[in-house]
C-alpha cells in the first residue's frame, strides 16, 4: 500500500510587502510529502526554507496557491482551528530551543498539554514518558539555564512529541550544537521518523540533509532541485558547499 499523502502544496506563493514593493519569499511551490517521509529542505540564507516550514506548520498563511494538510485546505481554516492543528498534529523544534526559562524541563514539556486542558496527572505521566524517550527523565526537574545545549534540544523534542503529533518540523535543530550533541539529536529524530512520524527538517548541513529520504533545495523561493538523500554523497559538511548555494548546481 502506497503511503498516503499528508502534505499537498500546489503553486504556493508567499509574498511580503517590503517598502511598498512585493518580495516573493516563495514562488510556485509544488510538492507532495507522504505520511512517514523524512524530507530535508536546503538552500542558502534567505532562500525561503524557514518560510516554507512555517507555512507547512500553519504558523503562516500562503498568499497564493493551495496547501492541503491531511485532506483539509488550510486557507479555509479559522485561527482557532489552526491553533488546534498546531497543538495536536504538529510538533516544532527550533534552532534556539525556545524553552521558557522560568519553567523546568518537565514544565516546558507539559506546556502544550496545559493549553490542551489535559488533567494534571495525565500531563505528568505523558511528560515523563516523552522525557524518557529523549533520555532527559533524570534531568526533568532542571531549569533551562542548568542544561547543556544538547539537553535543551532534547527537552524541546520531548515537548514537540508530547501531544503525539503526526508531523515534526525542525528548523536547524543542530545549528547551535556541537557535533556530538548534534548526532544525538539527529539519531533521536531519525528514531522518531522510523516509528512513523513525518519529519521535515530545514538545514544548511549536507551531512544532516543526507540522512533524509529526500532533499528539496530552494533558491530565491523556488524549488531548484529534488534528490534522494542517499544521492548527496559523501560531502564533508565542513568544507565548501555550505550555505553559499554553490552546491545547488551540481545537485540539480
Amino acid at each position, binding site marked *: 500500500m502506497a503511503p498516503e499523502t499528508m502534505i499537498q502544496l500546489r503553486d504556493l506563493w508567499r509574498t511580503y510587502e517590503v517598502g511598498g514593493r512585493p518580495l516573493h519569499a516563495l514562488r510556485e511551490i509544488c510538492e507532495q510529502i507522504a505520511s512517514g517521509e523524512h524530507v530535508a529542505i536546503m538552500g542558502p540564507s534567505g532562500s525561503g526554507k524557514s518560510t516554507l516550514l512555517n507555512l507547512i506548520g500553519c504558523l503562516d498563511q500562503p498568499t497564493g496557491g493551495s496547501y492541503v494538510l491531511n485532506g483539509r485546505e488550510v486557507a479555509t481554516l479559522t485561527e482557532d482551528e489552526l491553533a488546534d492543528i498546531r497543538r495536536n498534529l504538529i510538533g516544532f523544534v527550533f534552532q534556539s530551543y*525556545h524553552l521558557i526559562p*522560568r519553567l523546568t524541563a518537565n514544565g516546558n514539556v507539559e506546556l502544550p498539554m496545559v*493549553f490542551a486542558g489535559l488533567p494534571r496527572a495525565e500531563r505528568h505521566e505523558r511528560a515523563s514518558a516523552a522525557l524518557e524517550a529523549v533520555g532527559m527523565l533524570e534531568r526533568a526537574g532542571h531549569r533551562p539555564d542548568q542544561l547543556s545545549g544538547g539537553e535543551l534540544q532534547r527537552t524541546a523534542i520531548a515537548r514537540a512529541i508530547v501531544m503525539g503529533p503526526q508531523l515534526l518540523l525542525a528548523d536547524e535543530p543542530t545549528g547551535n550544537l556541537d557535533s556530538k550533541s548534534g548526532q544525538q539529536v539527529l539519531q533521536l529524530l531519525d528514531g522518531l521518523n522510523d516509528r512513523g512520524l513525518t519529519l521535515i527538517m530545514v538545514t544548511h548541513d549536507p551531512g544532516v540533509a543526507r540522512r533524509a529520504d529526500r532533499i528539496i533545495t530552494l533558491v530565491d523561493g523556488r524549488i531548484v532541485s529534488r534528490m534522494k538523500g542517499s544521492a548527496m554523497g559523501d560531502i564533508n559538511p565542513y568544507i565548501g558547499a555550505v550555505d553559499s548555494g554553490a552546491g545547488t548546481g551540481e545537485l540539480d
Partner: protein
Amino acid sequence: MTFFEVLRFATAALRGHGLRTGLSMLGVGIGVAAVVMLTGLGEGARRYVTDQFASLGTNILIIIPGKNETTGGLPGIGGVPNDLTIDDAATVLRTVRSVDTLSPVAMGTETVSYRSRSRDVMVVGATSEMQQVRGIVVRSGSFLPPGDWKRGAPVAVMGKGIAQELFPGQDPVGKVVRVGDFRTRVIGVMAPRGVSLGIDFDDIVIIPVATSMRLFNRNSLFRVLIKLDPLADSEVAKADIMATLIERHDGEEDFTLITQDAVMSAFSQIFAALTAALAGIAAISLSVAGIGIMNVMLVAVSERTHEIGLLKAVGARRRQILVAFLTEAVLLSGAGGVLGLGAAWIAMQALAATYPAVDVTPPTWAVLAAVGVSLVVGAVFGVLPARNATRLDPIAALRS
C-alpha cells in the same frame, strides 16, 4: 486550560521578575492604601460629628431667634424680628403637648473670680430643665433649682475644669464667686464631660437664665433647647411649636426651628462629600498605578515575544494567550491591592493606638471598592498589552 492552570502560569511569570513585580505591586498598594485610609479618616470625621449630635439625645429641637431669609416689604413694616423671650419658651412648654421639656438658653462670656483668682469663661444661662435636655450629670452639690424661670436666683453650677482652677484642692460647693458684677453661690459641680457640640462642658459656668439676661443686659434668648416626647411625631411637634410662636409674634415667623436630624444630616452630607473628594484624590493614585501596571505588562510582552511565539507554535489559542496575560495583570494589581489593604490596616492600628478618640475605620464600601478597583485597574490596563501579545506574528516572535 483551567482557571487554576492560568493562575499558576501567571504566578510563575510574575515570580520570574521579582523586583519589577514588587514595584508595580507597591504602586497599586499605595493607591489602595490611600483610598482606604483617606476614606477611613473622612468617615471617622463624619462619625465623630454625627456622634456629637447624637449625644444631644434624640428628639431635640432648637429654636433660634431671627429668620435666615430675606423678607419682602419696606424696612420697619415687616421683618423686624421680635425677641425670643423666656415667656415664649414657657408658653411652648405649657401649650405644645408633644414637648417633654425645654430649657431657654442665654450665652455670653464673663469673668468669673474667687478671691484673687479669676478667669474669662463661657457663662450659660439656663433652667433646671437643662439637666434633662442635655443629660448633665452633677458630681457634687446639685444643678439649678426648679422654680420660676424669671426669678433668677444668685447661684451657679461649674464645670470640672473651671472648678479646679478657681478652687484647687477644694470643693467649691457653698463658696461665693463673682460672675461679672454678680455674686453667686456655687451650688454644684458637673461631672467631666469634655467638648459637646463645640462647647467644652468642663469650662463653663451655668447660672439661672433670668440672672444671665440681667448680667448680659439682653432681652432675647440665644436658643431654646426642646426635648420632645419620645413618642411624639417630630413633624407635628414642629408645626405646633411654629404655630404657637408665630401667634405670639404677631404672625411673624421671625425665628428658626431646626431639628437635630436636619443639622446632623447637613453635617453628615458635608463630611460624606469630603470623604468622596478624598476618595477621588486617592483614586488618582490608583489610576497612576494602573498605568504602571500597563507599562510593566507591555515590557513583559515585548520581553517575552519568544515565549508568546512558542505558545502559538504549541497550539495555544489567541483567547488563551489573552487570558494568560490578562490574568497576569489582574494578579499583579490584585496582589498590590491586598498589600495596600494590609498596609492601611497596620497604619490604622497605629493611628488608633495613638489617638484612641478618633475612629478611623474605613467604610466597607471603600474597602471593597478599593480592592475591586485594583482588580479592574489590572484588567483594564492589562487589555492593551495582552492584545498586543495575541497579535504578535509568531514567526517574527520566534525569530531569534
